[in-house]
């Protein structure tokens, strides 16, 4: 029997079905703009201003999510090679190349219909240099209007008044007027407040879900499962009623799992024993996502906290969108995204996770495509080992380029790491 046939049927909970229908509806809306006349803004996950985009009746199309989608459906490899044939360097981000390659293959959405060209490129320049050149490349292809929101990096580990004022001013004087101009809809701050209220409600439940992993045994996997949990808030649904409902349903499901003493749900059903509790730094690999996850749950490894699930907002440190200070709140949100924080802040956060989630150690999945995450991760690992006394491990993969996922290498490293944790435990109990 081959591996595909051997896979058991994927278990779907209500929250999963809800999210699936939300995503499908958004793609249907995006691919029917020729009929509906709705305008489309493309933007990024970090610094995603979904509530603001909705104020102008516009649809939100996120190229990173399209790349992930194509990565998970094993389509990104050909797109990347296509972009490389057209002169894009093999050294640069594969999200960008998957996006460029998608265009050359007809810009097909997962529903089999073509995505429309964006009416506005909302360049939220938050925590990633590549974003800036990515949208310059898209503008070069589409020739559409582009508005830039520069979000200053927290180089000194804090947000100053100057940084915040700068973002607020850009939102008021450049971003909102551009959205008004493209959509033909006048900005209504009360509408924004309503959306932000709903955002905060959903964010409360997301944080509750993520923090449920502090329980030993954890009812969730905060990385492989976590990427689904952050889906609505990080993408085109933050601020919607759908997102509020999704997180209510999800919280209810996790509460039940906690009551029943169940571990995380995996594609093959409930996870058996929880043997290892890990904190993971870095994005996952998407082209072999299921295989990658399986390497963990087969060995009883649960990710109890991850930084990738903070890339579109670090809500567990207390930030919530604030309807009483709507524009300022959007600025604070952008400024606080994970990759907009400096290395010492990232180390502090990881140390906190390892300690508060009672983790056995830190695993870094270093991504070739993403220097924003990856540059400095070896120092991060050393710092965490030094501060917590827990072992670290380092694996290397890529986001959506299948050429950079070596299953055997990754599995070997993971197994060695789990053995290292076992040995530490033994020597600790012997001492």
């Amino acid at each position, binding site marked *: 029997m081959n591996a595909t046939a051997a896979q058991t049927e994927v278990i779907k909970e209500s929250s999963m079905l809800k999210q699936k229908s939300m995503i499908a509806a958004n793609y249907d809306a995006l691919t029917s703009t020729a009929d509906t006349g709705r305008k489309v803004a493309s933007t990024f996950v970090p610094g995603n201003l979904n509530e603001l985009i909705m104020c102008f009746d516009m649809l939100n199309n996120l190229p990173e999510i399209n790349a992930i989608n194509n990565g998970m459906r094993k389509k990104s490899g050909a797109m990347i090679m296509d972009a490389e044939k057209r002169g894009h360097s093999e050294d640069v981000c594969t999200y960008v190349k998957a996006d460029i390659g998608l265009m050359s293959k007809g810009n097909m959405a997962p529903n089999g219909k073509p995505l429309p060209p964006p009416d506005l490129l909302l360049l939220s320049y938050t925590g990633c240099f590549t974003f800036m*050149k990515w949208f310059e490349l898209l503008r070069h292809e589409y020739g559409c209007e582009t508005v830039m929101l520069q979000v200053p990096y927290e180089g000194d580990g804090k947000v100053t008044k100057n940084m915040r004022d700068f973002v607020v001013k850009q939102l008021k004087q450049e971003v909102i007027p551009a959205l008004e101009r493209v959509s033909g809809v006048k900005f209504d701050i009360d509408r924004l407040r309503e959306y932000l209220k709903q955002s905060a409600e959903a964010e409360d439940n997301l944080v509750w879900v993520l923090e449920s992993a502090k329980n030993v045994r954890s009812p969730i996997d905060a990385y492989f499962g976590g990427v689904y949990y952050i889906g609505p808030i990080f993408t085109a649904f933050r601020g919607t009623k759908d997102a509020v409902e999704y997180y209510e349903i999800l919280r209810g499901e996790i509460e039940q799992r906690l009551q029943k003493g169940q571990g995380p749900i995996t594609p093959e059903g409930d996870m058996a024993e929880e043997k290892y509790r890990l904190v993971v730094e870095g994005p996952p690999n998407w082209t072999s996502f299921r295989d990658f996850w399986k390497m963990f749950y087969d060995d009883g490894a649960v990710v109890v906290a991850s930084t990738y699930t903070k890339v579109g907002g670090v809500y567990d440190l207390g930030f919530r969108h604030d309807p009483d200070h709507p524009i300022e709140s959007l600025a604070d949100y952008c400024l606080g995204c994970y990759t907009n924080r400096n290395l010492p802040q990232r180390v502090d956060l990881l140390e906190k996770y390892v300690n508060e989630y009672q983790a056995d150690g830190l695993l870094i999945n270093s991504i070739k495509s993403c220097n924003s995450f990856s540059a400095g991760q070896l120092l991060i690992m050393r710092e965490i080992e030094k501060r917590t006394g827990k072992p670290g491990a380092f694996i290397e993969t890529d986001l959506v380029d299948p050429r950079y996922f070596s299953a055997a290498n990754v599995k070997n490293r993971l197994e060695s790491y789990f053995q290292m944790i076992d040995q530490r435990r033994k020597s600790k109990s012997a001492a």
Partner: protein
Amino acid sequence: MSTASIIETCTALYEDLNFESVRAWKAQNETRKVIGFMPVYVPREIIHAGGMLPMGVLGGGDQLEVIHGDAYYQSYICRIPRSTIELGLTNRLDFLDGMLFPSICDVIRNLSGMWKLMFPDQYVRYFDVPQNYQDDIGGTYYINELKELRQGLEQVCGNEITDQAIRESIALYNENRNAVREVYRLRAEQPWKVPSSEVYLLMRAGMLLPVEDHNKMLADYLAAAKEEDRPLRDNCRIVVNGSFCEQPPLNLIKSIEMAGCYIVDDDYMLVNRWMLNDVSTEGDPLQNLASSFLHDSADTAAKYCTSDDQVGQFLLDSVRETGAEGVIFAAPSFCDPALLERPMLVDRMAEHNVPHISFKYAENSGQMQPIREQAGTFADSIKLWSET
């Protein structure tokens, strides 16, 4: 003074990975401080106005064996951060009182945080610059950033950095920029008299010398170079683009010339030429620095271009102004800004029928034969088939 003796001095500075000249400068007075900076631009005037020496840190080149630095970076990250860490960990930069990491890419950005963790006694600042060029938006932000920088530097030097002192420093750096532009102009006009390897070393010397000394060196070189009697070769004229951060080995520059290309413009050390014209010495100096940055500065891949038709325009202007016949896109491996922008620049050059080739290098690239062959073939193709 001959060009040879000036270049000999520059070469000694370039090859000295212990930065003895800077150490000697600092040792002359115990109150002296040195602030390191990485590419691509920092306002050196503010450092200078505090009585400190701004020192360009441009990696370790091809003579530094990187041992510790490689342990901090994955194989897919460029070389300049690892050789910079090597310089730091081997105490070659132990005389620095501060380090500035300009906003250029995520690797250098993250290096600022690494430096904070690794060298906690130094003043370390990520130097952010506006990508919004409106005076009341990006300008206001930038002026406040400059004020913060000034405050931070005041704590390092222990003195107030006055407006007047900054104005005086701006005047000195205006002089420097004028002399640098004059060297570039002379090279574009008579490239056989001003070899690019010499221009490069001359500009690198400016990364280590006090501006007053560099000004004199540039003036001496200009006077000497004009008197030089060097043979005119049948070379083509090219612009090098994409080398603004991690520097190519000197041999690479020589190889391009030996292959039959006169380099008539480049972006090797943009900090020397970032401001395209004099910065005003009247009024508020921080506002003047900001205004020049926003409206009168060089373009590079680390900057946002506000409209598609402006992408590559700076390069195209350079090609036209210098009479270049082609462009060599030479970027360091894994350089996000240069490599991401390259397809747009290539399109722009193609639109205007500017011949171009591309290759990658690392600061420690050793094999020059492929570069020579590629550049040589490019030069031949221009000579044989160019319509101009």
